[in-house]
């Protein structure tokens, strides 16, 4: 099946959410792209599609989904993916992403990003599903590393090794959520240094930066706080590995005034720029 390659793109942006629609439609904002939640625009008509068309007229747009259910043992929901394809055709996005997770089985849909065991069986299921989705969309997918609260014991692979095998088998790319690495590493006590060594960095096309909160027993990926220092530090280390990759600030709850998010975008630019200088100095 013919699949369109992902056009190279670097830049800095935000996840565009309803509280900031008016600001983006009223005046140019200092971002290079925006990301939107696909399902919010997989609708028949009305204001959502009107807003998206007007935003798309001014900015490159990435589509980020939450309902693909790529780890489903039942296989993909073809109706959902065809509807996603309609949105893709309408928007011509930079790329289409979703999460390495499953969301339901036997018709049940939890609407949550549930953890997969990193087993050979799960890898086979995920790769089969990715192949089908990429065939229907006619393009390669980006899959995001999840934040998890359960680590199934005795798994065949680490998360990074699973991601690497998945990319190799399907040709998909990665959306690297730096906060998710941090949250999962703290929750499960793994070493981010080894995670970094195992990751196929050449497959990373986008980065998410977000905040989290402290739950009763573990960190929770709540996307309701500024990017914390530990995640900025991890991002700086990731920049050393991956070079220039499109990066965005993701906030889904307690959404602050736009200038606060734009300040975080500027901070990401500074860190990535500094790392690029460092890389070029080392190369020279």
């Amino acid at each position: 099946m013919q699949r369109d390659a992902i056009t190279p793109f670097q830049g800095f942006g935000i996840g565009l959410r309803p509280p900031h629609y008016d600001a983006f439609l009223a005046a140019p904002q200092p971002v290079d792209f925006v990301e939107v939640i696909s399902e919010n625009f997989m609708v028949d008509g009305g204001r959502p599609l009107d807003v998206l068309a007007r935003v798309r007229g001014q900015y490159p747009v990435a589509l980020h989904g939450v309902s693909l259910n790529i780890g489903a043992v039942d296989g993909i929901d073809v109706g959902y993916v065809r509807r996603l394809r309609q949105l893709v055709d309408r928007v011509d996005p930079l790329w289409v992403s979703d999460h390495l997770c499953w969301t339901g089985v036997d018709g049940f849909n939890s609407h949550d990003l549930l953890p997969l065991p990193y087993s050979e069986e799960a890898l086979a299921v995920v790769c089969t599903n990715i192949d089908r989705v990429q065939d229907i969309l006619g393009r390669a997918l980006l899959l995001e590393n999840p934040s998890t609260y359960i680590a199934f014991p005795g798994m065949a692979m680490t998360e990074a090794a699973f991601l690497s095998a998945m990319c190799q088998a399907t040709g998909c790319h990665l959306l690297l959520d730096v906060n998710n690495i941090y949250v999962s590493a703290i929750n499960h006590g793994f070493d981010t240094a080894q995670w970094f060594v195992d990751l196929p960095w050449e497959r990373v096309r986008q980065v998410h930066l977000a905040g989290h909160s402290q739950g009763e027993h573990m960190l929770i990926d709540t996307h309701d706080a500024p990017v914390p220092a530990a995640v900025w530090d991890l991002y700086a280390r990731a920049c050393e590995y991956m070079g220039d990759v499109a990066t965005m600030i993701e906030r889904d709850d307690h959404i602050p005034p736009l200038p606060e998010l734009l300040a975080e975008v500027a901070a990401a630019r500074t860190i990535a720029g500094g790392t690029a200088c460092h890389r070029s100095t080392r190369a020279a």
Partner: protein
Amino acid sequence: MPPKHPRGMNLRDMQRSFSAHLQGADPLPAGATPEGMAVYTHAYRSQLKQCLRETFEKTRLWIGDAAFDEAADVYIRLHPPHAWTLDAYGDGFTAHLDHAWPRDPDVGELAWLDWTLRRAFAGPDQAPVAMAALVNIDWDQAVLTFAPTLRWRHVQSNVAAIWRAMDEDRIPSTSPTETTPPALRVWRHGLSTRFASMPVEEATCLDLATMGASFGEICIDLARRTGEEAATTVAGAMLGDWLRNGMVVAVA
């Protein structure tokens, strides 16, 4: 034979066990810790409840947070979601409230209004017919096509007034007046969702129109119910109202 996970559980078994636990079953999935599963269970329930709170915003204001959350908790337990979109999750909540509050029709009717406005918000686009295009129309034979977002129902409460009062931060009247219209319609004009009360005669006209009756046939039926003279006045005003408010998308 599919490869097994630790403790002999394959991926399908794990996903079924996990899903069952989210929906209230006791056993933990193999390998899962209580602390970890608690995070997922909390996220599952709180997201569904938040979805209902946002979709049925005025209903929640009307009956209060405690009563609303109690109804939502029961609904979530009885109605695990199946659609790919959370937008569909509240589909049965109006009926659930009707059942839970049988002596308070205002509750279910407010929920219907919340739900129908939400559906109209992102419903299909179809441009209203332009007034300027309505020349040389044989109105006796004309068949009207309505906006695809248009819905209507009979009501027992002053639900439209209650909704508007809450939207304007006013204290709503709790009892219907003698002039409270017994029907309510919802639609979208351009990008703007709208609702309006209407007399029962108009609801009957909409019933006929959407079954394919011509405007002439609608007028004849109206005359049978209201008398010739009143029917002429009512039909003209009703048609003008439908056209001005973007409810009609085609006249053929």
